[in-house]
């Protein structure tokens, strides 16, 4: 295997870790309340612009914008839950799907208005540098964002599986009424889930801002990427999202490397359609 190929695969894994982070948020919300957030990709986009604003407008550093994106998006998630999702959750399917779809449009075109349609990037100097890992050259921002995303996704998994708050979240996901009888407030837990999911999207966005050009319409592509990852990994499964995120990252990298840059997304979408035909419950999901 040539060194270039190894480099492509490692880059793919690093990007895939970021995909895993925001997709695990989507998966968590689905697992908790069977709602798909169609605005999830636009939440990631907001995280990217938070990084941009923090760095270019407010002259802050990389240590500022990650937490800033997390806090802002956490709040947005909680607001969206209480203002919109809580009411439509038990409504007809049409309302469930259209509500977050409408939210996605508002966020996307508001960003369009504020930041214009042009692509922007973070300034080079602050986050430059490459690292030489045994002959593989990786951008420092890429390496950092990949590793941080991996740690945070693992943290999300540990939070859900090894803490009291995680047990409460899962209890509500399992049976809302039974959880209520145990003294858990389902509304608060579901709001928390939305907050966590959005914060994950926000941080992932901030991490991606260092690697990718930012534009208001990027949310749609990211949302579809998250759908693909979550379908692959099985809905509601954070470890599944992690594995699938890494796989999708590598698939994107390899198809761009072998066939050309436009096939980056095409390969993933084709894989998605094939997946729906062959194994719709996902790699790790139950049928």
């Amino acid at each position, binding site marked *: 295997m040539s060194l270039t190929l190894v480099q492509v695969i490692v880059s793919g894994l690093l990007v895939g870790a970021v995909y895993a982070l925001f997709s695990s948020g989507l998966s968590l919300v689905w697992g908790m309340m069977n709602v798909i957030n169609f605005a999830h990709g636009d939440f990631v986009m907001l995280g990217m612009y938070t990084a941009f604003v923090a760095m270019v407008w407010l002259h802050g550093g990389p240590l500022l914008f990650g937490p800033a994106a997390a806090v802002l998006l956490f709040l947005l998630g909680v607001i969206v839950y209480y203002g919109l999702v809580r009411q*439509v959750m038990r409504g007809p399917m*049409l309302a469930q799907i259209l*509500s977050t779809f*409408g939210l996605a*449009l508002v966020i996307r075109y*508001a960003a369009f208005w504020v930041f214009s349609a042009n692509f922007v990037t973070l300034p080079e100097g602050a986050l430059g540098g490459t690292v030489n890992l045994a002959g593989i050259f990786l951008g420092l921002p890429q390496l950092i964002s990949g590793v941080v995303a991996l740690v945070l996704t693992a943290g999300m998994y540990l939070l859900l599986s090894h803490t009291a708050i995680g047990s409460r979240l899962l209890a509500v996901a399992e049976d809302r009424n039974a959880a209520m009888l145990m003294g858990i407030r389902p509304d608060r837990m579901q709001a928390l889930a939305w907050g966590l999911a959005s914060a994950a999207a926000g941080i992932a966005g901030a991490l991606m801002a260092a690697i990718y050009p930012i534009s208001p319409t990027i949310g749609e592509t990211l949302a579809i990427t998250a759908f693909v990852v979550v379908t692959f990994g099985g809905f509601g499964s954070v470890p599944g999202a992690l594995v699938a995120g890494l796989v999708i990252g590598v698939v994107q990298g390899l198809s761009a490397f072998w066939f050309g840059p436009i096939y980056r997304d095409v390969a993933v*979408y084709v894989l998605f*359609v094939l997946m729906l035909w062959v194994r719709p419950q996902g790699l790790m999901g139950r049928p």
Partner: protein
Amino acid sequence: MTVEALPRAGRRRAGWGVLAATAALLLYPWVFTGDFMERLGALVLLSAIAASAWNILGGFAGQISVGHAVFYGIGAYMPLLVYQLWQLPPIVGIPFAIAISLVVAIAIGFPTFRLLGHYFSMATIAVAELIRIVVSNWDFVGAAIGLMGPAVSRTVLDFSFKSSVPYYYLFLTVLALVLAVTWHLQRSRTGYYLRAIKAGERAARSLGVPVRRYKLYALLLSAAFTSVAGSLYALMIGFIDPDSGFGILVSVDMIIIAALGGAGTLFGPLLGAIILVPLREFTNAEFGGGGSGLTYILFGGIIMAISRFEPGGLMEIWNRIAGSRLGPRQRRHRSANRAA
């Protein structure tokens, strides 16, 4: 609430309403003259056709497609493609477009209809985006630039008119056809099956409704009409590019128009188009290209508000107001219908 389910008094009133609306639609080009208004009228009808087509699947069967632009785009591209390739009149491409749309519909619907609704929504959005990227990079269909129709009308078969009025009446005819088919569907066994599926898939299946097959029927019918709407767009505008054929906003327009008017009602999409298309055209005319940003902030807000407060759309509000004027016996009839 369907027209035929109304008691006699309500049915008579609905009949007069339909008659008045038909007269108004027939007379519109005589009342509102001038290029802008004539074009606007045609665009309202075109959007009403597309939204009514979406409504068959999204409204009646309850399967929410967010990628109907796939069928619209195929419909818009084929007529201009047969012109580019063989100099044939664009309408020759319409049957090809329908055939391709049906194949694509089966490819999406067959696997996803085994699963519950959200999968279908996600699959449609992904397939639409996939096809948009492929078309944007495929030189055979004009890549990012798109395709042109005949610049000068050669024969009347080119359907290339300077005025928007011929298109207006063409679209009105097609809309009448789509609504007639929808009306018939509502009253048929298929219509009842679709409503049962929408109300609860598991329950429908346990009562012996072949759920997957009927969801597929609704998708095929919906895809075919959406494709026709796309073809009509291409005939009128004479030009198509990937974004105006396959872009996400094409799907957004269909969904919001149907949802505002009332998804799952016969005339909801038409009502939605009468309200939203002028709004879109006026803001675009007023603010230029940047206006589309503003338009879609507004559209997104409207979608959220409908799903949050009034998932039945405006027709539901209208029925409630009209319902409060009915006598007690008719109200009872109506609530019995709603429960069913």
